[in-house]
């Protein structure tokens, strides 16, 4: 008994799922199949998740029986032959919606991520767990085609629909030849060459190498690596003697460290903190060799094409004072009269052409101030705070090692510029202030970590305030 072939395409609004669905319809119709297709677009067109559903049925059977099949308008669990997902989490969603059956369904999915706002907006790392989804996908389908199709589309300057279409062809799930697929792309008349290239990559991906996890583990976990990176960073940030100070500081901890973690985490956050972002650093980074080339590559500038970058700066009165010699900076910060007089000059953001001399030269000059950095107000402040933090780690390690590690990790809260930096610093200080009460308690380390995670959860500090209540 002939049954229709059911195909569900799950995509994000704007990813071209409709184009892919139309190609599949064209493919079927050109090769002796009836096709029906429907979609749920509506508000989901605006970046939400959308679903396209196609059913195809051999026309020869219609002619032989003289009857039209009744085709469905929505996927039924346990009855979807092919699921095509244009993004990893959407593939996962197709599994949770029960569209994927282990003894029936060919699942074709791109392993890349399009992050949702809820993942992007966390002050820390709010990304969903890829591994859990990948594991589930591997078990869910009869056949799984999984690779980074977004990258393949990018490499071939085509669209992800073309790569998915190729992956569908390569999967062999439909009874159509490669030429039949290619004819559809050619007949569409749009970006034919690129889309055929993307299509070819899709076929290769489906037939080729085993699926790979989209994110390689970034961190080799040895202290030495971290230390080396720290040294390089600080040399780049200031000079060799500053890097030596860094190594010296980590060395001091050797006596109290009983495993790698304390050294590694302290080395990591000490390097980051010692290379705090001030106006000099920003100006330095923005005028480096190779920077413009990097921008060009990311913006896909053509070979030989002129391009310029216009940077958005908004240093406030506070940051300017911070960059001055400590005594002068402190005076200006305290003086209301000076603030009233000078602050208006820094009330507005500036757009600076860093690849034109008018913008490059002032920044370049500013970057050269780094030899005077040790004399700035900001340096004095940061250095004192770093010393205080290291002293805490040193003192606490012999009493409560876990707590010391938790404290070593705590500067993760300090990042950003302006308000963001102040907010992070404030939360850091408030946790540090709690330490006298926590030392000696069994769950002190867990509490510090809970406070840190809460502090990273939302900008307004609701989670943090709640956690503080918990600890107090």
């Amino acid at each position: 008994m002939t049954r229709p072939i059911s195909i569900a395409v799950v995509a994000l609004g704007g990813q071209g799922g409709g184009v892919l669905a139309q190609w599949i319809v064209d493919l079927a119709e050109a090769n002796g199949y009836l096709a029906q297709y429907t979609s749920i677009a509506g508000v989901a067109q605006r970046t939400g998740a959308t679903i396209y559903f196609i059913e195809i049925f051999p026309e020869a059977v219609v002619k032989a029986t003289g009857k039209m099949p009744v085709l469905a308008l929505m996927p039924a669990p346990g009855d979807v032959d092919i699921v095509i997902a244009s993004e990893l989490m959407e593939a996962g969603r197709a599994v949770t919606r029960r569209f994927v059956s282990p003894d029936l369904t060919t699942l074709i999915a791109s392993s890349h991520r399009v992050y949702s706002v809820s993942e992007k907006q966390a002050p820390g790392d709010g990304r969903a767990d890829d591994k859990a989804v990948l594991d589930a996908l591997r078990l869910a389908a009869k056949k799984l085609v999984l690779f980074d199709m977004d990258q393949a589309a990018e490499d071939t300057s085509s669209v992800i629909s073309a790569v998915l279409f190729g992956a569908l062809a390569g999967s062999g799930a439909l009874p159509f030849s490669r030429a039949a697929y290619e004819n559809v792309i050619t007949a569409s008349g749009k970006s034919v060459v690129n889309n055929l290239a993307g299509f070819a990559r899709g076929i290769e991906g489906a037939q080729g190498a085993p699926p790979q996890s989209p994110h390689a583990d970034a961190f080799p976990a040895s202290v030495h690596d971290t230390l080396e990176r720290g040294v390089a960073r600080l040399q780049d940030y200031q000079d060799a003697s500053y890097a030596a100070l860094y190594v010296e500081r980590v060395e001091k901890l050797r006596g109290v460290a009983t495993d790698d973690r304390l050294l590694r985490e302290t080395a990591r956050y000490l390097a980051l903190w010692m290379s705090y972002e001030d106006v000099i650093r920003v100006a330095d980074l923005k005028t480096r060799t190779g920077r413009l080339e990097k921008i060009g590559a990311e913006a896909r500038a053509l070979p030989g094409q002129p391009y310029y970058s216009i940077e958005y700066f908004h240093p406030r009165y506070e940051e300017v004072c911070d960059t001055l010699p400590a005594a002068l900076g402190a005076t200006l910060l305290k003086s209301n009269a000076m603030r009233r007089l000078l602050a208006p000059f820094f009330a507005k953001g500036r757009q600076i052409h860093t690849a034109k001399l008018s913008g490059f030269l002032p920044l370049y000059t500013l970057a050269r101030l780094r030899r005077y950095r040790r004399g700035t107000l900001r340096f004095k402040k940061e250095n004192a705070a770093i010393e205080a933090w290291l002293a805490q780690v040193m003192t606490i390690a012999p009493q409560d090692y876990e707590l010391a590690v938790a404290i070593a990790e705590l500067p993760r809260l300090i990042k950003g510029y302006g308000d963001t930096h102040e907010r992070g610093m404030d939360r850091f200080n408030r946790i540090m202030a709690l330490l006298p009460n926590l030392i000696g308690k069994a769950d002190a380390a867990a509490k510090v970590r809970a406070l840190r995670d809460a502090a990273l959860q939302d900008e307004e500090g609701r989670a943090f305030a709640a956690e503080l209540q918990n600890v107090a």
Partner: protein
Amino acid sequence: MAERSFKEEVKKLRLGQGEEFRGEGILAVTKALLQAGVAYVGGYQGAPISHLMDVLADAQDILDELGVHFEACASEAAAGAMLAASVNYPLRGAVTWKSTVGTNVASDALANVASGGVMGGALIIIGEDYGEGSSIMQERSHAFAMKSQIWLLDPRPNLPSIVHMVEKGFELSEASNTPVMLELRIRACHLYGRFEAKDNRRPSPSVKDAMENPVRDVTRIVLPPSSYVHEQEKIDQRWPAAVQFIKDHKLNEFMGGVVGDIGVIVQGGLYNSLMRTLELQGLADAFGNTEAPIYVLNVAYPLVNEEIVGFCADKKAVLLVEEGQPDFIEQAINAILRKADVQTKVVGKDVLPMAGEYTADILAHGVRAFFNDHAPHLTSASKALAHSPADAGALPAKLPPRVPGFCTGCPERPIFAAMKLAEKELGRFHVSSDIGCHLFSINAPFNIGNTTMGYGLGWAGASAFNVEAKKRAVAVMGDGGFWHNGLTSGVGNAVFNKSDNVLVIVDNNYSAATGGQDILSSRAENPARSTRHAITEAVKGVGVKWVKRVRSYDVATLRDTLREAMTTVEKGPKIIVAEGECQLNRQRRVKPLTNRAIKQGVRVVRERFYVDSDTCTGDHACVRLSGCPSLTIRDNPDPLKVDPIAYVDNSCVGCGHCGEVAHAAVLCPSFARVELIYNPTWIDRALARLRQSVISWLQRRAARSMA
């Protein structure tokens, strides 16, 4: 102009007798209207019926040739009132909108046209926005049919059936002097399929003929004593005439087997889902052949008592598949059977849920329960086809929700970024939202907005907050909602009642959420419509004194203007019109032009944004004031850092919001705008070389000094 051009679709409207039409359901309806000799068409755009309006808007030449009048109405109320043309004249007319919201708006006009009745066929095509993908409250349009005595068609979801029902709908309307609603669910509107076309028919008479030969019948006007007579007419004459027509033309269908002591009654629109469910349980084949008798209600209202009694009389039990609540049909069938003293058990909402869409899963449960209870002889002999879906385990909790949000470069994003910044200064305030893309403000990252009361009702939704208080309430309204009714229900209302509150009007040049249709204040020249009527002029015209226009991408100015509106001592309503063209439409318009210019060798400067990975510290404060799809995150390239950094992908359209926010909120120095020069002139090249050589010399010098 609409989001896209429909020139290709328009060609399909010209297909003649015997040619095959291939296309979308709602487009098939459009073609069917022309085949039925419609004289006028109106409506208000909205998913899922927008394409009917869009295609006709692009089909002016065909409409002119046929002498068909098409109007993009100001609202569904205006569209409903348009049917008045069929009251005195034998003109076939059709109107369309999204339901139930559009039917709510139109209900005043519909009740009036239904009271007096029609002479020419009057068809109301409603896109029933119910279930998955819907953007509105979950209700049934069925209730409107019942309360006004309008007939409700719910055809089987395949193109030939839908097209047939359009034609029969006009005939039914004329035979019973009653307007007829044709209900299409979302999936049916977007359904791609085929049908055999017929020639288009010129309306006879046409609207012009009617205008030139006016007739009048005072008994058709809704005013006593006629209004009392109308109610009697509905029951004594129009209803029986409709029932007779439905029977004579076999609008409802008897399918499946003819014998057996059970059966299934199904709304036409759910027929395919039902048949697939039966097939998967081994009770039917792919062509809809089944032993179980099936009664398909292509007319959901009125029911034909005789057919129902006839179908049920020899059965112990029938399954009723009726989606949505209340269970109008189930109640009616029970009443019909009891009055006829037929004791057939009606199984409906006891095995199927009262509320919510009937998905394949849900139908499977209900159908299985019914057949196991009442026809075990069928189920025991059958072999289920469905495979077992994979176990998702704990996966659902791990998947991030994907809620709709503003598109890349949307001009509405900066409005809510500015509002969020104003909130930081002034504390939170009450925000009355409206219908439109701007309602996405309620989601992350903005989390702004308390209620939405209907299209254009944003300011009316804040009208109670018109007392002396330390804070002012803010309302938001789109330009679409403004012209739909907000000018009167919101602005006029605020002026008249001396409101002291603030309204932000989102002026993006289109009715954007419904597909980018032109409205009165659109900037585009539209040969068929009158555009460029400024919103600021309109609100001043009804008496608002405090009116400010701000470019929406100018976050700092917008924040300052909001602050001023919230704190000024000046009394009276305050309106901020935030202007910025819908980016979706802008890109559709500009992108091809830019590409062509580049190809032709014209000097073009393209802009996009860039996040400096060296200075980004991964706090994502920028995301919290944006949520732009192109502003995303990626692994931190610095192995010392744990948190992902921000990153602008290649979908960036260079709207400038990132930079504005970085400035206004004093975020960080990581944002840069990149200007790419295509087809540079010799001056461009020479300057670039010069700049580059000086800069690299300095850089080399600096590198030496560091080493």
